C-alpha cells in the first residue's frame, strides 16, 4: 500500500465514527484530494479483493471501516458488540416524513400521520436523528425540523439523494388516480 493509504487506514481504524473527507485530507498536509480519493480506493479494493472481514464504507460525508454482515451473528453471540435497537414504526414514519419534507413543523407531520408527534420528535431529537433547523412563518413561528448527519450515519447513507425520489415511490394500492372531480 502507498504511505498515504497506510496513514488513512490507521486513522480510520482509530476512529469510532466516520471521518469526514476534509479531515482525511488534513492528515497529510501534502496530500491532494485526488490522492486521498485514490488512497481510499486502494484501501477499499484491498479489503474487497483480499477477503478482509471489514470493508470501507462511504457514510454521510466521510468514510468508515465496518465489519461485514456475515460476521454479525458470531460477534453478537460472543457479546463483543451488540446491534442497536430497531426504531419503532412510529419513529420511522416520522423520520420518513422529516427526511422528505424538511424543514417541516410538528403540525404538518401530525397531519400526515394522523397522530400526535410531539413525544416522538423529542425522542428522535434526543437520539440526534433530527434537529430543529429553523422557525416557520405564521402563528407562533413553529419550530421546523430536519435530519442530521447522524441520520445519514444511522441508515448508512451518503446523502439524502440516495433515498428513492418521491415520484419513484409506487403507490401500490391501485393504479393511477382517475381524473375525476
Amino acid at each position, binding site marked *: 500500500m502507498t504511505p498515504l493509504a497506510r496513514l488513512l487506514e490507521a486513522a480510520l481504524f482509530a476512529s*469510532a465514527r466516520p471521518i469526514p473527507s476534509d479531515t482525511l485530507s488534513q492528515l497529510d498536509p501534502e496530500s491532494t484530494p485526488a490522492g486521498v480519493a485514490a488512497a481510499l480506493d486502494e484501501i477499499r479494493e484491498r479489503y474487497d479483493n483480499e477477503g478482509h472481514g471489514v470493508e470501507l464504507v462511504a457514510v454521510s460525508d466521510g468514510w468508515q471501516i465496518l465489519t461485514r*454482515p456475515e460476521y454479525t451473528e458470531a460477534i453478537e453471540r460472543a457479546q463483543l458488540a451488540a446491534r442497536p435497537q430497531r426504531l419503532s414504526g*412510529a419513529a420511522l414514519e416520522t423520520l420518513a416524513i422529516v427526511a422528505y419534507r424538511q424543514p417541516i413543523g410538528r403540525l404538518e407531520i401530525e397531519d400526515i400521520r394522523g*397522530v400526535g408527534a410531539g413525544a416522538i420528535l423529542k425522542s428522535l431529537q434526543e437520539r440526534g436523528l433530527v434537529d430543529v433547523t429553523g422557525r416557520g412563518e405564521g402563528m407562533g413561528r413553529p419550530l421546523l425540523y430536519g435530519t442530521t448527519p447522524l441520520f445519514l450515519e444511522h*441508515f448508512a447513507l451518503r446523502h439524502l439523494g440516495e433515498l*428513492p425520489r418521491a415520484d419513484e415511490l409506487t403507490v401500490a*394500492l391501485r393504479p393511477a*388516480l382517475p381524473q375525476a372531480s
Partner: protein
Amino acid sequence: MHNDVAPMHARSAEDAGEHVGFIVELPEFSGPLDLLLSLIRDEQVDIYDIPIARIAEQFLARIHGMRIDDAAEYLEMAARLLRIKAQMLLPRPEGMEAWEDPRAELVRRLLEYQQVREVVDVLERLSDDRRNRFARSYVQVQAEPVDRDDRPFAATLADLFAAVDRVLRQATRPLVHDVIPRALDVDGAMRSIRAVMALRSRAKWGDIVSRDAEPWQILSVLLALLELAKSGELRIAQPKPFASMELSGDTAS
C-alpha cells in the same frame, strides 16, 4: 405488513385483585390511517372507491375497547368516516358535473400516508443493513486490576471470628476528623474569568489558566467555570472528543 390483528395485546388488571376488565391496545398500528389502510388491504377494496359504510363499521369494531387516551385519534377518524358515509347518502344534484366525492380528501391522505409507509420500508431495510455492521467501538484503555484471584474464598471459623473481632474493634474507635480549610479560591477565580470574558466573547482553557498554575489554582478555575456555567453566565463547549474546551460569553442560544 399489519395483516394479522388477532394477537392484540391485552393487559388484564389482575394485579388489582378485582375484575376491572381488559385494557386493549393496538400496538401494531401506528395510527388511524395505518389501521384504515390495513382494513382496505384486508378487504381488498379499491382505494378510489371505498365502500365507506362497510369500512366505517369495521373500523369501529376494531377500535372498540381501546384505551381512551390512544383512542382519541382513532375516534376522530371514526367520526370522519361516519360523516363521509352520511354525505354519500345525500342525493347528488342532477346533471352537475362537478360533484365532489366526499371521500376525495380521505383518499388523498391515505395515498400520502401509503407513500410514507413505503419510505418506512426503505428506511427499515437500510437500517437493518447498517445494524448488521459494527463500527469499531471506542473504548478507553484502562489498566486491568492486577489482583484477579478467582479462587473461591476459603476461611476457617477461627479466621471469621478474628475478622469480626478486628472489625468490631475498629468500629468502636472514636472517629476524629481533621478539618483543613479549603485552600481554594473559587471566588477569586470567578472574578478573573469574568474579567477575561468581559474583554473577549470567546476563550479557551489555556487563556484563563497560566501554564505554571498550581493544582489548587487549576481546581479553583475548574470549580469557578462550573459555577459560572451553572448560573448561565457562560457556555462551555467541546466541539469534539479530546478537543480543547471553548468558553463563550454568549448564552443566548
